[in-house]
């Protein structure tokens, strides 16, 4: 089975009357010359590791090696416990889980790169928070993670998922598109709605640069995980209402790639432009290098 584009995916799903995750797990089983159960077992291992990362991240306030970050998740938990949020429990969980995972990553904890380490909080936070609050069984969480994987895979067929290649579009941006589709799947959306959610999410991250202070996966990466997790929920909700992107998903992927090519290398993980060259960033860098 060959799936190189979202168009291929939609056709395969419709022709075989199957959901995205069903097509994806058959694709992967064929590729690895094994059966679907084996693939699901491996995906479940990753899901468990994601849950462990959240658990560990929620408990810790240990700072990163740079000493810049590591205690924001604790601030959220404290405030949410006392006063709640405007948006309710699911919002609280998604934002805390995204920060818990991203902070666990910077303190060298064990995480699952999804698609990258810098964007590791986005996919798990949405799948796991919604599953907990909506009592969605593990089986369907695995379906969702497989759906996320298929979406990321299709994008990576055209664009290498690395900040150095296409900026943060290709890292946190693609993570957000992956889980927008995965959430749509988990909430009962069909293949058209899944792909619409991907399109809606991806359109709104085009042009996102990778300009980390001192080249570390910290500023602005960690907090961006929480923002783009919530961003994915917006896309899924719109798609499930029947909102459609005027531009189809494959053309948005092409745009992401071209935008990445047009982006100055200064804004692609080199720490030579953007936020990394602000007065404050340079001061932080100097302090760090003199430590």
């Amino acid at each position, binding site marked *: 089975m060959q799936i190189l584009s979202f168009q291929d995916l939609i056709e395969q799903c419709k022709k075989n009357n199957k959901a995205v995750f069903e097509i994806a797990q058959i694709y992967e089983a064929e590729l690895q010359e094994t059966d679907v159960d084996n693939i699901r077992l491996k995906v479940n291992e990753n899901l468990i590791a994601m849950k462990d990362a959240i658990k560990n991240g929620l408990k810790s306030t240990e700072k990163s090696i740079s000493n810049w970050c590591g205690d924001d998740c604790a601030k959220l938990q404290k405030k949410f416990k006392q006063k709640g949020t405007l948006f309710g429990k699911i919002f609280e969980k998604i934002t805390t889980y995204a920060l818990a995972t991203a902070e666990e*990553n910077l*303190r060298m904890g064990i995480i699952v790169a999804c698609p990258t*380490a*810098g964007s*590791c909080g986005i996919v798990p936070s949405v799948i796991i928070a919604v599953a907990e609050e909506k009592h969605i069984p593990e089986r369907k969480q695995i379906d969702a993670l497989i759906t996320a994987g298929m979406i990321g895979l299709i994008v*990576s067929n055209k664009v290498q998922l690395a900040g150095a290649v296409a900026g943060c579009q290709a890292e946190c941006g693609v993570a957000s598109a992956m889980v927008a589709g995965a959430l749509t799947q988990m909430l009962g959306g069909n293949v058209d709605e899944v792909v619409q959610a991907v399109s809606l999410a991806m359109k709104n991250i085009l042009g996102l640069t990778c300009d980390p202070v001192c080249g570390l996966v910290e500023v602005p990466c960690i907090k961006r995980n929480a923002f783009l997790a919530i961003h994915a929920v917006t896309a899924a909700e719109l798609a499930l209402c029947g909102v459609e992107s005027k531009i189809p998903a494959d053309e948005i992927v092409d745009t992401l790639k071209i935008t990445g090519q047009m982006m100055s290398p200064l804004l692609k993980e080199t720490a030579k432009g953007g936020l990394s060259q602000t007065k404050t960033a340079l001061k932080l860098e100097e302090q760090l290098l003199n430590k």
Partner: protein
Amino acid sequence: MEQKSLFSVISPIMAGPSSSHTAGAVRLGLMARNIYNKKFKKVKFILYNSFATTGFGHGTDKGLLAGFLGYQVDDARIKSIFNIVKDIEYSYDYLQDISRHPNSVDIIIDDEMKISGNSVGAGEIEIVRINGFSTKIDGVYDTLILMYKDKPGVISTVTKIIQKQHVNIASLHCDRDSKGGTATMYLALDIPLDESAIQQVKQIKDVFFVTNIRKLK
């Protein structure tokens, strides 16, 4: 176009914070360990370019050492490796050299072997030099490495031994310092080679170094 795996986007399970600067570093260390493949007392890591400038904040130094000591990328002890290691001597140097890959390292073991490698993104790595000889080992295949006196017939003697085991050779790479001097051979194999075959290769006249590197997990 080569078909990619779903797991290329929802993996690996790893110690953070960076797939290139942390997981890649661990894998480079692991490869160096597998290549040297014997007891050691002393190891030195020379980090280049981005590895040198941002490595400390990404735990690249810890990752390299942990990998060299046999830890896998998902081992939670990587972050505290400096507190764990007691019996070996280790040191680091930091250099800039634009002729090298942005994420590059030399690993010098017991002043006897120098292994150079790059972290090429998403945790993928390549070993590009061993003791000055060019190589291309990415840890995807089991790889048999030989050093021998450059002379006719060694390649066919080696490949015959492998053929008898019904093992397919995925790629073969040779290099030498001079005609009749020291030559190297790298054979990437589709399935692992039996210990008996490795012993046979070791018996070949004028072959003075053989190591079989298992692929990385």
